[in-house]
């Protein structure tokens, strides 16, 4: 009923743990699998270790969250071992999120990831708060395409998703990326945001700017997913951004997402969120008379009355 196929990956259900959320260790991967997720994305891994930014690197805004973790990660050489453990620990697909400052770095991480059995890759060209990485690379079409080409060559034929930002010309990038052989899109990463404390009279994050996530970014995420589907039809999309219930997961699917990322909702709802969404989707399919979730993908695009 809820199974989906995503560029060749078989998922027991469309829910994918979003990158950067509990994506650092095999023990967490197992817990996420047990909670019901259909796939697991690692935090974004770069070639070299990164300590990330100083605290405060995370804010609960009341509505939504702002983070500037700064792509903290142990580097792929160290993480390779964790990847081994992850592959041993869980049966759901493990998607390696890949970051870096140059095409060579992306290539290196994908290569090691492929050797260690990552089931798919997600190229993070969309982190909004790290200079010289993420969204800045996505803005430079030539660099972005070079990253995709090199990643493809190093991927051992496994699917590669391009994680897009709502900030740049994502439709232009998406079109070229498809020609360069990308398997699908993940949309969206966090929005670039800022928070100030009126008594401290200062920005809160040590990095000043951070990535905005949670329910408030959902209308923007839905817009991007809808546009991608409108433009590229059957290319698989992982819809991410503010999903915190079966209703919002379904909105993503109706907008055109074949799978749905769950991220910050875990802060408010705990691991239970996976089970709740699955349960809700099941009930909806039954009462509304659908047999498979796949029947709903992109259904909101039908215009006739």
């Amino acid at each position, binding site marked *: 009923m809820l199974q989906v196929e995503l560029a060749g990956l078989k998922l027991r259900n469309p829910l994918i743990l979003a990158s*950067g*959320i*509990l*994506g*650092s*260790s*095999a*023990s*967490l*991967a*197992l*817990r996420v699998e047990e909670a019901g997720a259909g796939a697991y994305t690692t*935090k974004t891994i770069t070639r070299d*270790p*990164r*300590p*990330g930014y*100083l*605290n*405060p*690197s*995370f*804010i*609960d*805004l*009341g509505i939504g969250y702002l*983070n500037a*973790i700064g792509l*903290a*990660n*142990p*580097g792929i050489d*160290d*993480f390779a071992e964790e990847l081994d453990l992850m592959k041993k620990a869980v049966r759901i697909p493990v998607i390696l999120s890949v970051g870096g400052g140059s095409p060579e770095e992306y290539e290196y991480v994908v290569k090691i990831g492929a050797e260690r059995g990552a089931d798919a890759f997600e190229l993070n060209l969309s982190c909004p708060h790290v200079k010289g990485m993420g969204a800045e690379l996505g803005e430079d079409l030539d660099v972005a395409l070079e990253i995709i080409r090199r990643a493809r060559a190093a991927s051992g034929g496994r699917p590669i998703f391009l994680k897009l930002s709502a900030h740049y010309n994502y439709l232009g990038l998406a079109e070229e990326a498809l020609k360069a052989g990308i398997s699908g899109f993940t949309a969206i990463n966090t929005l670039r945001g800022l*928070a100030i*404390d009126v*008594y*401290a*009279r*200062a920005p*809160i994050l*040590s990095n000043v700017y951070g990535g905005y996530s949670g329910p408030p970014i959902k209308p923007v995420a839905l817009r991007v997913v809808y546009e991608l589907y409108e433009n590229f039809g059957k290319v698989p999309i992982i819809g991410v951004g503010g999903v915190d219930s079966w209703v919002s997961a379904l909105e993503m699917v109706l907008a055109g997402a074949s799978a749905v990322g769950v*991220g*910050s909702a*875990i*802060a408010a709802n*705990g691991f239970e969120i996976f089970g709740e969404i699955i349960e809700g989707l099941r009930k909806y399919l039954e009462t509304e008379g659908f047999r498979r979730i796949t029947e709903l993908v992109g259904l909101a695009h039908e215009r006739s009355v």
Partner: protein
Amino acid sequence: MHLAARIESIINVTSTTKVYRLGYRGPSPGPGQFFMVWIPRVGEIPLSTADYEDGELLLAITRRGRVTGYIHENLRVGDRIYLRGPYGKGFNLPRGGDKTLLVGGGAGAAPLLFLAETIRERGGRCDALLGFRSGDEAFFLEEFKRSCGSLFLATDDGSMGSRGAIPDVLRQILGERGYDAIYLCGPEPMMAEVADLVRGTGLRLEASLERYMRCGVGICGTCVLDPLGLRVCRDGPVFPLEVIVRIDGFGRWWRGFDSRKTPI
């Protein structure tokens, strides 16, 4: 967002620890819960609730490095400290009739004081064993005396109380007094020794752990305990003995801010 809390008083309890009393108007913390404490333009660190009553929050801050150093040197009465929290799962209070011992090493005394006060307020009783490097690093002794039945004291150099490390003194006490429950907080190697000591005795034990933290709400993964997938900030910081003994590298290494294993 953070809540601004004014410093109402500062007491230098030892050369390395100061106690800050704050006017705080957020949700009430329970013993064992912690706050993420932000000093604008400096940094944010986790700190335990050393005590709380009616909008008065006590923090006992031991100087360790950049942020704690800045706090000690620059913050004055009337200044603001910014808090988010309370976070985490704190201590389960002892069951009525439990003979209870609180075991705290160094800065680990802080969360236990709040626990002791809470036990007393609920009409319970507990003893406490506190350990410090030396007598002039000892703090909260009067407070513990007020809240506890017996207070045992250990210092590495014997300058106050018994000479020796906490586990040595504890071994002795455990033999003499039939405790049912132990609450533990302090340097992790010490906690590992105590856990070993208690293991298999049937005693209930809960310990408050420390890890690097970022989000404090259980989504970044920084504070994970392997191989259990437990998050110190959300599933803890207090965990029972059964959990503690299964933690990889307990008392030996943590994950650093880049998730790599670093010796404690």
